[in-house]
């Protein structure tokens, strides 16, 4: 290959030399030939012309004398001159006097024309003479005749060609000498180049041991040496790099082995799926969980390998989001697993999902323990409550009997008076201690259930001022007896929170009662403030305070800090732990600050519910409920007569079920309204305020669960009991107050409905805006059996602040002066717009 390259250079040079030499030699030849030809032709013409002139000058006399022999002798002499082909002389009559032709003159020459005054040159072709230049000279202006001299042109051409030939031979000789020299020189240059190429190729093939033998001491030699040193450098670098790479590879392999050992030895089952849903990693624990054997499942679709529950999880996590999903999954051999799935995302260079990973933990044992715990709670609950029932019940009966039957008979006898008083006191102690014990049992069970996650929490929109009001009302008994004042200090415009109102009230009651227990000084201040995204509630007192070291531990179970107190108050020691459970469930924090001897402050914070601007006044996630919420304020409640039967709203799309329910309820003397779908149900519930809603869970469009949620969230309808009728057996989670499984037994249905109607009565007190002297309001007493209060429009908020709960009637003409949407958002406050009065209504 190197040879070919060398030859290639030579070939190129040769070809170039050949072309150059060819061009030079041809051009030189043409030029030389042309000059030579031109020169010789002119010389021949001048020679012929001289001969003709000489003849013409010498032969005038002779011709005039017609001496042909002399002329002949003269012209024969000229024939000897080189290049002269012929000479002939004509007289004035164009008769040939003499000529040099043998044997005779070609006829064509006699036909030539002549000029009388001057020389004439012609070129012609004559047979047996070839190409001739004929020069004609007149003698005495043609009077004595003409001389023709013919010069042989063939001679010129012969000479010309011989010159060209010689030149070409010389050129070719020079050319070949050049080619030879070129070849030698090229060989000398190309060989080291070929060696270099060979060497470079060896380097390219990583053969750094090769050497190069060029000792020409020129540029190529230098290049070779540079390449050699470069090769040495490269060889060192390569060796270093190779060792680095092999070390790194070794580390990596070790690391991989380590990682896969970890994955293989995980007690939890692990499976990784690719974005397309195929299994990429699966560990032995996972195989064991599902009895998958030793088959290599990599590349299989997760849906083909695992049961539906796991497949669903793997499908859900294959999109890139930060959510972690978990599910309880049945494993083989009756075990239960807790699966947690998350997607695998990388942020760099671009956000990309690499699939998902699912971890499954065997929680069979935990489930069993959990069940044991539940059973334990139930058992303890039963075993403790039963004797407590007897103790407390009998104690109360004894106290009653003593007071009603025994003591009056003894009152006369002064000697037993002291004993009677003592017995009375002792009975009080027994009852109050029994009640305290009951409270303790309830608290223990409460916290046990919270810790076991067995509490069902309600998700409501809760207004903190409402919680504070309710808590103050509930604790009024304790603090008014002790002579301590509790005041509320609530920031206006507090956002609502989401959660279980009853439980939040429980927290606050607990904190307030605690403060009352430990203080004798007024006031205890209950504050509510907005703190960023939280609503912060605090209870401050001027009591004994808490030691700094105890501030944390008071929230632990059974950790009353009683020993720092001279007077140990009664309590279970579980109040604060329960509070902490409740607050933490709501996503908040609870803590205490205190200065011993000066008082303490308990704080808890609950995240504020996200609410849109006041004009829409709906919760962002509850867009489905919007319609009914806003419409409810514009609908007028039906006027009913005082003895009207309770109204039941039946919701369902199945006409047979609707008809059945209607029959059953009307048969019981109840009034029935029927709504065919969710939207209608929401509207009718807000408008008619039924005493009970009976609904089918399965409906087209807005389903039962959503309706229940919306009804609970709507302040107008959240007090209405809901009875769920479902074909499903699992109705506990339906969200209603009570669920019945279809087919429904009518007797049972009636009993349940009766029980619900007995339990809940949504009718509260009524507040009417405006003057009291309008006759139409008499009819409203039907709705408001308790009381009707008339209130000037400006005083409405004062009433609300004071704790008003019930229905607010707003005459339509006053509606514009009031923020009705804000009013309707308040829990336990319903808004009813009274229509414009017509003459007929006035007369009622």
């Amino acid at each position, binding site marked *: 290959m190197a040879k070919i390259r060398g030859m290639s250079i030579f070939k190129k040079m040769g070809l170039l030399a050949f072309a150059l030499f060819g061009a030079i030699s041809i051009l030189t030849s043409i030029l030389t030939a042309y000059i030579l030809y031109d020169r010789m032709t002119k010389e021949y013409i001048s020679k012929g012309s001289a001969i003709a002139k000489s003849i013409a000058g010498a032969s005038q006399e002779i011709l005039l004398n017609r001496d042909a022999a002399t002329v002949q002798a003269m012209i024969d002499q000229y024939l000897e001159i080189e290049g002269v082909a012929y000479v002939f002389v004509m007289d004035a009559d164009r008769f040939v006097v003499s000529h040099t032709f043998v044997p005779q003159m070609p006829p064509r020459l006699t036909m030539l024309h002549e000029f009388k005054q001057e020389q004439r040159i012609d070129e012609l072709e004559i047979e047996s003479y070839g190409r001739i230049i004929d020069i004609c000279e007149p003698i005495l202006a043609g009077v004595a005749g003409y001389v023709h001299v013919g010069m042989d042109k063939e001679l010129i051409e012969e000479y010309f060609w011989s010159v060209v030939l010689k030149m070409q031979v010389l050129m070719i000789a020079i050319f070949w000498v050049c080619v030879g020299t070129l070849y030698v020189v090229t060989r000398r240059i190309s060989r080291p180049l070929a060696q270099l190429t060979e060497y470079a190729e060896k380097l390219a093939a990583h053969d750094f041991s090769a050497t190069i033998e060029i000792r020409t001491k020129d540029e190529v030699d230098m290049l070779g040496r540079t390449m050699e040193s470069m090769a040495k450098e490269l060889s060192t670098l390569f060796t270093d790099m190779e060792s680095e790479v092999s070390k790194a590879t070794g580390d990596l392999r070790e690391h991989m082995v380590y990682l896969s050992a970890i994955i293989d030895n995980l007690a939890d089952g692990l499976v990784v799926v690719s974005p397309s849903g195929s299994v990429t990693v699966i560990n032995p624990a996972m195989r064991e969980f599902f009895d998958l054997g030793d088959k290599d499942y990599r590349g299989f679709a997760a849906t083909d390998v695992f049961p539906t529950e796991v497949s669903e999880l793997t499908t859900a996590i294959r999109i890139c989001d930060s959510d972690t999903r978990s599910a309880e999954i049945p494993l083989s051999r009756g075990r239960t697993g807790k699966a947690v799935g998350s997607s695998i995302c990388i942020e760099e260079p671009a956000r990309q999902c690499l699939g998902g990973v699912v971890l499954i933990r065997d929680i069979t044992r935990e489930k069993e323990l959990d069940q044991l715990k539940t059973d334990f709670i*139930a058992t303890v*609950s*039963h*075993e*403790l*409550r*039963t*004797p*407590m*029932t*007897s*103790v*407390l*019940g*009998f104690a*109360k*009966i004894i106290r*009653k009997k003593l007071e009603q039957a025994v003591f009056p008979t003894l009152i006369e006898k002064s000697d037993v008076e002291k004993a009677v008083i003592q017995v009375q006191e002792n009975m009080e102690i027994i009852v109050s201690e*029994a009640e305290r014990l*009951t409270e303790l049992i*309830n608290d223990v*069970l409460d916290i046990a*259930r919270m810790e076991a996650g*067995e509490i*069902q929490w309600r998700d409501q929109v809760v207004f903190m001022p409402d919680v504070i009001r309710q808590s103050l009302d509930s604790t009024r008994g304790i603090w008014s007896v002790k002579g301590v004042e509790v005041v509320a200090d609530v920031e206006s415009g507090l956002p609502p929170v989401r959660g279980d109102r009853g439980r939040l009230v429980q927290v606050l009651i607990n904190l307030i009662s605690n403060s009352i227990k430990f203080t004798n000084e007024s006031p205890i201040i209950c504050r509510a403030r907005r703190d960023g995204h939280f609503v912060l509630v605090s209870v401050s007192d001027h009591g004994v305070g808490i030691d700094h070291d105890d501030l944390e531990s008071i929230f632990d179970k059974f950790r009353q800090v009683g020993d720092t107190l001279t007077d140990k108050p009664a309590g279970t020691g579980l109040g604060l732990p329960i509070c902490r459970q409740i607050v933490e469930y709501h996503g908040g924090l609870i803590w205490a600050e205190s200065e011993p001897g000066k008082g303490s402050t308990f704080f808890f914070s609950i995240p504020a519910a996200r609410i849109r601007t006041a004009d829409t006044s709906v919760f962002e996630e509850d867009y489905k409920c919007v319609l009914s919420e806003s419409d409810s304020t514009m609908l007028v409640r039906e006027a009913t007569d005082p003895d009207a039967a309770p109204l039941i709203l039946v919701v369902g799309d199945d006409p047979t079920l609707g008809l059945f329910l209607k029959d059953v309820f009307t048969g019981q003397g109840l009034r029935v309204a029927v709504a065919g779908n969710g939207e209608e149900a929401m509207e009718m519930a807000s408008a008619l305020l039924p005493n009970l809603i009976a609904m089918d869970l399965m409906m087209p469009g807005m389903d039962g669960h959503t309706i229940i949620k919306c009804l609970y969230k709507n302040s107008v309808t959240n007090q209405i009991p809901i009875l769920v009728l479902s074909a499903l057996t699992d109705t*506990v989670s339906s969200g209603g107050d*009570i*669920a*019945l499984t279809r087919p429904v*037994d009518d*007797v*049972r249905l009636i*009993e*349940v409905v*009766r*029980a*619900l109607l*007995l339990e809940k009565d949504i009718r509260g007190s009524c507040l009417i805006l405006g003057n009291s002297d309008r006759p139409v309001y008499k009819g409203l007493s039907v709705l408001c059996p308790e009381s009707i209060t008339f209130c000037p429009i400006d005083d409405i908020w004062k009433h609300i602040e004071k704790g008003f709960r019930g229905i607010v009637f707003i005459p339509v003409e006053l509606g514009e002066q009031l923020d009705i949407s804000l009013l309707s958002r308040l829990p336990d406050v319903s808004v009813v717009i009274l229509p414009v009065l017509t003459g007929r209504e006035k007369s009622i």
Partner: protein
Amino acid sequence: MIKKILIVDDEVHIKMLLEQTLEELEDEYDVELFTASDGEEGLEFIRSERPDLVFLDIMMPKMNGYEVCRIVMADGDLGDVKIILLTAKGQEVDRKQGLELGAMMYMTKPFDPDEILRVSKELLEL
């Protein structure tokens, strides 16, 4: 017409407590008290005597209160019998279960004797 109240509980003391509590009604109104010590006995009595009001304990040997309640409610002839479930269990699920079975009320132990009196009067329309 004499109104009959049946107390079904396996705990002797609870039975006594209820009896002593309700004696007040016996004195004031036309009310007669009966007791049974387990579910089967209670059910038998309900079937034969058709009491107006039954205080029914849930956790009992032989037949539990839910079962008794279910059978009574399923029997069309016994439609007038009002049942108050009494239990030491205080969990939400139990309460629902009881009311779904058709019980009129669900009272948690320990109960207040005065409350028992008040509810009885209400249900018996005294």
